């Protein structure tokens, strides 16, 4: 027997999990998973991002993979699309950098400038 409150909790919790099927407007974290990406170690990056998102119960976040982004020497590459903001490209990402990206950029809205492709160009 569930109270109305309990039903609302189930609703919220399950929606976080399956909203990926309906809503396309949340944050997208895209990990380059072509041969270059996988060879450079993109799988551990992908897994650590997923773990962080799970740990912090982040709603409306989609983690997807993509093919070769083009800058193969800079893999593993992670791109972050937040609705209403410009795309941010992080390069040479590893598991620990990924954790910082999720905590600072995704959760607090602070782009981690030193990991971005712009920083390297300098």
């Amino acid at each position, binding site marked *: *027997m*569930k*109270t*109305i409150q309990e*039903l609302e909790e*189930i*609703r919220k*919790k*399950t*929606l*976080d*999990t*399956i*909203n*990926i*099927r*309906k809503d*396309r407007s949340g944050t*997208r974290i895209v990990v380059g*998973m*072509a041969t270059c990406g*996988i060879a450079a170690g993109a799988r551990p990056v*992908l*897994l650590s991002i*997923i773990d962080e*998102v*799970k740990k912090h*119960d982040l709603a409306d976040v*989609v*983690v*997807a*993979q*993509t*093919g070769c982004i083009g800058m193969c020497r800079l893999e593993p590459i992670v791109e972050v699309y937040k609705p209403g903001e410009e795309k941010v490209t992080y390069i040479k990402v590893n598991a620990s950098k990924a954790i910082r990206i999720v905590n600072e950029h995704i959760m607090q809205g602070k782009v981690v400038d030193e990991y971005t492709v712009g920083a390297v160009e300098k």
Partner: protein
Amino acid sequence: MEMYRSHVMICKGTGCTSSNSEQIAKNFEEEIKKNGLEGEIVVERTGCFGLCALGPVVIIYPEASFYSMVKPEDVEEIVKEHLVKGRVVKRLLYAGSVEENKIKAIEDVQFYKKQVRVALRNCGVINPENIDEYIAFDGYKALEKVLTQMTPPEVIDTVKKSGLRGRGGAGFPTGMKWDFAARSQNDQKYVLCNADEGDPGAFMDRSVLEGDPHSVVEAMIIAGFAIGASQGYIYCRAEYPIAVKRLGIAIGQAREYGLLGENIMGTGFKFDLQVRLGAGAFVCGEETALMASIEGKRGMPRPRPPFPANKGLFEKPTILNNVETYANIPQIFNKGPEWFASMGTEKSKGTKVFALGGKINNTGLVEIPMGTTMREVIYDIGGGCPNGKKFKAAQTGGPSGGCIPASEIDVPIDYENLAAKGSIMGSGGLIVMDEDNCMVDIARFFMDFIVDESCGKCTPCREGTKRMLEILDRITQGKGEEGDIEKLENLAKNIKNSALCGLGQTAPNPVLSTINYFRDEYDAHIKEKRCPAGVCKALLNYTILEDKCKGCGICAKNCPSSAISGQPKSPYKIDSSKCVKCGVCAQKCPFKAIVKK
């Protein structure tokens, strides 16, 4: 929180299941495990996506990649390429979603562009055997609103305002029906769901029950509250085992969460549901016959009055609504009756689900706003007739309906317009016919079905439809007589006026409709003993084309009734009075010189 970066949705409606989608699902689970991806990817078995002609269908989120005609052998590639590497397998994508090498979103695909999925909103998107997923997409929110914030008259008023009309075929205003039952005074009332779906070729209700059973459960509880009933029955035909199973699971889960039974949501309201199985009788889709069947009696209709809203099941006030009618109810409360009334036409509000079948490219399930034209359904959504054949007519309403010919193809689909053209909306079965269909044969097919299904209680139906069938049989066998059409029309008029229930009253409709629009075909059969479409076997004459015949004699040697004669090296001839139309000669002729016309 459970986080899966990718959801693999596999259709497990009856259609795709019979094309082995269970094996596909199992293969996905195995391959995902093999590649170490179980924590990241979830495989869901869902209801019908609608594009049945291209099943088995698999949709992978977040990309919303629409894979069609998937085979169990394809799964390994999809997992390795798409799930591990993020590379969509283009060759397996539904062709309609790939344009100039760009992949279109599902909503923009031709098949789905004009559809508005209300009754089918959850089909293909949730796991129908998981109540939590139904709840996630606003499930049981309507019930909460109704039980905690509304009174029964307000509930009925909301349904009336929405303009919802019965989706079973008759189109009776649902709010009005509930109102009548609410006003009847009695200690016990019943809420019934008609899930018998007897029309040949119709599977709208089946898909709702298989893909989103909770929407029906929630709606019936709301209906119970509105009319003051504490018990409901879902009468489902036994030929739908998947639907029956999922209904059972849904009811069990709802009971577990206290959404059925005593003290629902702590409001003191009590309501429970049971499933009752039909046993294969078309007539049990008729209101009073259905109730007789639930009561344990032979499914036979009875006269009205008294109407079920006053005296129905077990002589108590009862409402009976179709599955699709119920499927619309939760959204009417979640989004408001004005939202529902904003779709459709003046007298036919909302959307309607159609099962497209017959000579059409995109066979499957579509849901469109009322007012969409037949042309849009057949060509824009349905993709037209295959093999470049010319569209001839579309039959709506099954054995109770009529056909809309090519000349009327721009008719906007709603209750009034279809009736004005001599057909009915019906439950939603839409059978498309092309130039190779014989309209007299179609009329005969439906009448044959009716004669089989007639319960036999009233004379007009029991005797009348049989006489009509006999006449149609004679006509299609080349024994039609002058005056047959008038006899058919006379019988039709009398049966319509005096049959006891809807089955008999509407049985003559296909005949009347085809006579109205295709009288020339009837005339050809009767006067010239000719079937213009080339379907009625008895009227086909096998002929040897003189210019192609080399006089080899192979046909004559193989003819089982010695109907072919001739001299070597000169054209042979078939004696049609001896010919039994077996077609062996045409098969054996090495020069393709024998045709049937």
